[in-house]
């Protein structure tokens, strides 16, 4: 190349550069990897800057496109902020939103969705794996309800699913599915929205969206902007690796989670948050009675990478709304820790974490005068 093009690596949507051709091939390969990992078609992958954008694109996109058909949306209290805050904004703009409340285990009954569906419902947005407590919702049953309803599209936030439990878009009956790379050991700042193209076979057209950002016509004109080739390639690789290793890895992680929970349970005054059976093992959420939340975190954080509340929202330092939705008191919600278990976690890590937590919780209970609690 004698003169450089405007960008370093070429624009994969550009048809006039040789650089662009190479970049386009890389992006196509990544599209295939992501699609294969989640049971979707490569053409259904719309790249985004993360699951936050994917969630916003799904929710605003459907709401705006179908605003003449209806302005009612169903979601749940335990969704990610990206879903809840988008819904709140739609409420400010005149939409109505039903927020389903899960049971004390964090689970929704598909009957709750059935009861909430209205003629003017245009969207049901529910997550597959909850990011704070790891519970897995029965999305397929909801998919069937939406298909029966005919007018309600189903969006699934699956940012936490890939590599943690099987997820197959085509079988879920979902129309839209949000994905994120960095939850699967990929780079931050890239994700995807899967947009179904097989609606015809189900007797209604495919879901349509009004884009969030315009200009340039990339990604089936659903998401304008220069594609970051290196980011997308990273996401593809991460998803391929996740798919290859996940079943073996899940058994190993389940064992570690068991060990962690049993270790902590001997402390007494601990409660596990969320269903233990309908959940992925990569997330364990535990409430510690008799200790104040901020002190708990400060005491363990030099040694154990745990978080309070949602890892994504802890800038706001408020008690987890997810745990509150499960009926936990404000205090207990604050003194809860979310442990993430994954590829790099070993048995020795678990034992060390149990030791630190046991020591620190006992110490804090002594300081708090709640040691007998």
């Amino acid at each position: 190349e004698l003169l450089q093009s405007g960008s370093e690596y070429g624009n994969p949507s550009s048809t006039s550069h040789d650089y662009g051709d190479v970049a386009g091939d890389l992006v196509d390969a990544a599209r295939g990897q992501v699609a294969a990992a989640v049971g979707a078609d490569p053409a259904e992958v719309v790249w985004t800057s993360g699951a936050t954008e994917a969630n916003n694109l799904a929710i605003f996109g459907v709401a705006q496109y179908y605003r003449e058909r209806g302005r009612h949306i169903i979601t749940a209290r335990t969704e990610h902020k990206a879903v809840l805050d988008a819904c709140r904004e739609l409420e400010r703009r005149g939409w109505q939103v039903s927020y389903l409340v899960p049971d004390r285990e964090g689970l929704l009954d598909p009957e709750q969705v059935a009861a909430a569906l209205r003629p003017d419902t245009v969207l049901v947005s529910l997550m597959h794996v909850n990011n704070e407590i790891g519970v897995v919702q029965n999305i397929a049953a909801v998919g069937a309800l939406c298909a029966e309803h005919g007018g309600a599209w189903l969006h699934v936030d699956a940012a936490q699913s890939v590599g943690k439990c099987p997820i197959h878009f085509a079988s879920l009956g979902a129309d839209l599915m949000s994905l994120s790379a960095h939850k699967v050991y990929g780079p931050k700042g890239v994700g995807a929205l899967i947009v179904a193209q097989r609606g015809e076979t189900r007797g209604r057209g495919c879901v349509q969206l009004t884009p969030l950002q315009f200009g340039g016509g990339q990604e089936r004109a659903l998401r304008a902007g220069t594609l970051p080739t290196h980011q997308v390639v990273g996401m593809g690789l991460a998803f391929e690796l996740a798919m290859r290793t996940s079943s073996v890895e899940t058994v190993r992680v389940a064992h570690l989670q068991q060990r962690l929970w049993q270790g902590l349970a001997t402390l007494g005054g601990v409660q596990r948050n969320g269903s233990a059976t309908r959940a992925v093992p990569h997330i364990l959420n535990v409430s510690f009675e008799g200790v104040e939340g901020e002190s708990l975190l400060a005491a363990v954080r030099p040694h154990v990478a745990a978080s309070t509340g949602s890892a994504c929202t802890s800038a706001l330092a408020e008690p987890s709304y997810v745990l509150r939705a499960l009926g936990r008191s404000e205090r207990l919600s604050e003194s809860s820790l979310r442990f993430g278990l994954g590829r790099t976690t070993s048995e020795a890590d678990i034992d060390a974490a149990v030791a630190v937590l046991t020591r620190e919780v006992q110490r804090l209970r002594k300081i708090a005068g709640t040691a007998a609690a």
Partner: protein
Amino acid sequence: MNYNELTRRYFSSAAGAGELSGADVFRGTAGDREQGTWVQFDLQVREGIVMAARFLAFACPHTVAVSAWLAEQAVGKPVNPRLPESLQYLQERFGMPVEKTGRLLIIEDAWLGAAVPAIDYRR
């Protein structure tokens, strides 16, 4: 949340944590665990001098640290009907965010709850 060196030191040692008992022990408590902050001071006072001091705190690291420091510095001195330093000074020294000013007031209440009766008793 970041904590300064002083806060980290008193939070992790928390040397004076505990309770005292006896006729010469004065106890003050304030706050409410259900509201997220609760503090208790026990002062053992003989002839107007603090012989021993203990605290309990169901509270954030800043509150624990300030309480621990108060208990520590009191020992061997005449019982003080006020905090030994202004709230503003404590807030600065321990790098306590302004949102937590209410917790300093709880500490003060608990402190006065123990110290004032001890003074009254001496009179």
